């Protein structure tokens, strides 16, 4: 602790930038695979081939040429399903963040900007939302209304706005009486102009960090819901569903759960690395 910090500072920033770069590369590769992957993989993710069930991937014995990552319990090409699953994960992550971001940012900015009664109401909404057990309620909604991609997005979007609201509220409070906001107000700017043109752009970077965190969380939750059979319906190859379907065979062929699990892990890690890098760039690492 007595050493001058300057010696180590370059190390931190270098590693931080490296983490950010790795994250961008991971997310980029998975995004490209999600968009064009199924054009490159020679197999269809839904075509069954019961004569070729549970063929192991290329690094194991007994692998089948042409099925790079093997086949699942119905003989469907695992690579094709994995690549299609990336599309589902990213789609759900992005759509959920848009939904929850809209709700959370609106509430947070309004509460932080106006204060008083409005802020009390926003704080109450945040407190209530935090006390609701997310997984259980999401499971219940999907269980009672029937599974489907749109419903999963809507449910997660309605449940995951709390961190957006907390951060938007706190950052809005910090800047609502800064000089440039006051200057705009004195110049006769309307309230909506103040909120949209002065406040939002200046808290956007903090919200971007929240967006990465929430996207990672949404992807993990969707996988958990699908794993429990109450998320994305089969035969869509959600990674969580692939793990659930492979569960019965995992003691004999562990790779059936390893392949989608590792994919899920790498995607979430990549998104978190991007978020961490953004936070470091903002220089607010110490305030959590």
């Amino acid at each position, binding site marked *: *602790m007595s050493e001058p*910090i300057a010696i*180590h*500072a370059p*190390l*931190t920033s270098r*590693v931080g930038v490296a983490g950010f770069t790795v994250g961008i590369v991971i997310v980029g590769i998975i995004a490209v695979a999600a968009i064009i992957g199924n054009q490159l993989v020679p197999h269809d993710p839904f075509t069954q081939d019961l004569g070729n069930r549970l063929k192991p991937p290329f690094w194991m014995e007994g692998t089948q040429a042409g099925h790079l990552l093997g086949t699942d319990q119905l003989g469907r090409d695992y690579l094709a399903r994995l690549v299609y699953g990336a599309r589902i994960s990213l789609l759900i992550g992005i759509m959920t963040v848009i939904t929850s971001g809209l709700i959370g940012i609106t509430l947070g900015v309004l509460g932080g900007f106006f204060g008083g009664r409005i802020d009390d109401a926003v704080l*109450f909404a945040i*407190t*209530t939302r*935090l*006390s*609701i*057990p*997310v*997984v*259980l*309620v999401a*499971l*219940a*909604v999907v*269980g*009672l*209304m029937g599974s489907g991609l749109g419903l999963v997005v809507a449910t997660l979007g309605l449940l995951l706005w709390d961190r957006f609201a907390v951060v938007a509220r706190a950052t809005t409070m910090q800047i609502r009486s800064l000089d440039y906001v006051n200057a705009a107000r004195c110049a006769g700017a309307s309230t909506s102009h103040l909120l949209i043109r002065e406040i939002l752009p200046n808290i956007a970077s903090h919200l971007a960090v929240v967006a990465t965190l929430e996207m*990672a969380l949404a992807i*993990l939750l969707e*996988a*958990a819901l699908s*794993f*429990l059979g*109450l998320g994305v319906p089969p035969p869509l190859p959600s990674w*969580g569903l692939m*793990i659930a379907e492979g*569960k019965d065979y*995992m*003691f004999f062929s*562990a790779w059936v*759960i390893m392949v989608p*699990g590792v994919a*899920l*892990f*790498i995607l*979430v*890690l990549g998104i*978190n*690395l991007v978020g*961490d890098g953004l936070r470091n760039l903002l220089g607010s690492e*110490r*305030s*959590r």
Partner: protein
Amino acid sequence: MLLLIARRLGLGLLVALTVMTLAFMLTRLSGDLAISIAGPSATQADVEIIRKAYGLDRPLYVQFFSWVGRAMVGDFGQSYFFKDSVSNLIAKRLPITLTLGLVGLSLALIISIPLGILAAVRENTWLDRGVTMFTMVGQAIPSFWLALILMIVLGLNLGILPISGTGTWQHFVMPGIVLAFTAIPALTRLTRSGMIEAMASDYIRTARAKGLSRARIIFKHALRNAAIPVVSIAAVQLGFMLGGSIVIETVFALHGVGYLGWESIAKNDFPVVQAVVLVLAAIYIGLTLLSDILNALLDPRLRTG
């Protein structure tokens, strides 16, 4: 202090009431409950009988207030599937979930506090980066997947722990580890940032100037202050862990409240679903109240809040 507790208590009750309303609305989402209870092969007459028997023919607001009124005194009605009252079911399952939660939280604290301190006193070294990396990895591992891997490694390959069920204390080890992993990243980061902040403060400089030993400074002076947010977050984390244990309980077939919730959702047993949502929310509300009070006790500066 008393005013603080009273105000928090009032807020907690208001939140609980809102959650009750939401839980009630939630179970009405599916449309006609009588039809879903009766099942696909029921006739119109069967549905009418069920509607009468469960009181679903009454107006919604009557159903709501009668549910709220009875829930206040701990009566959540009868389960449709289990031939038992909902309160009994929950009372039977709650100890298992609480045990799991406490095992998970203890494991999480045992691992994350030393890691956080280590990272803080070696700030900006490779060790610090390593701890950060560990928290990143922990955050990215899907808990149900970690559960399956532990089953394969500890249960099948090494054969030292049972794979599923509720019987003995060994049944809580694997679920406890998995649950701990959901809290370790946040707790480690918080300990680290709290310690870094504390180590940079004036009273630590004073302690150092007095010539106190490094260990004394870290554990006696810095940790005590860094512990305040960790203690309060730990209580809140326990609430989140209990709410999130549904996935872990289901994977390990551990018959706690979360598993009960999952079973009831699958069986359209809506009085149980409502009650489980409410109980988990109530526990969370109670724990945040506790954390506020603990905070005020640990840090006199907060007592006026």
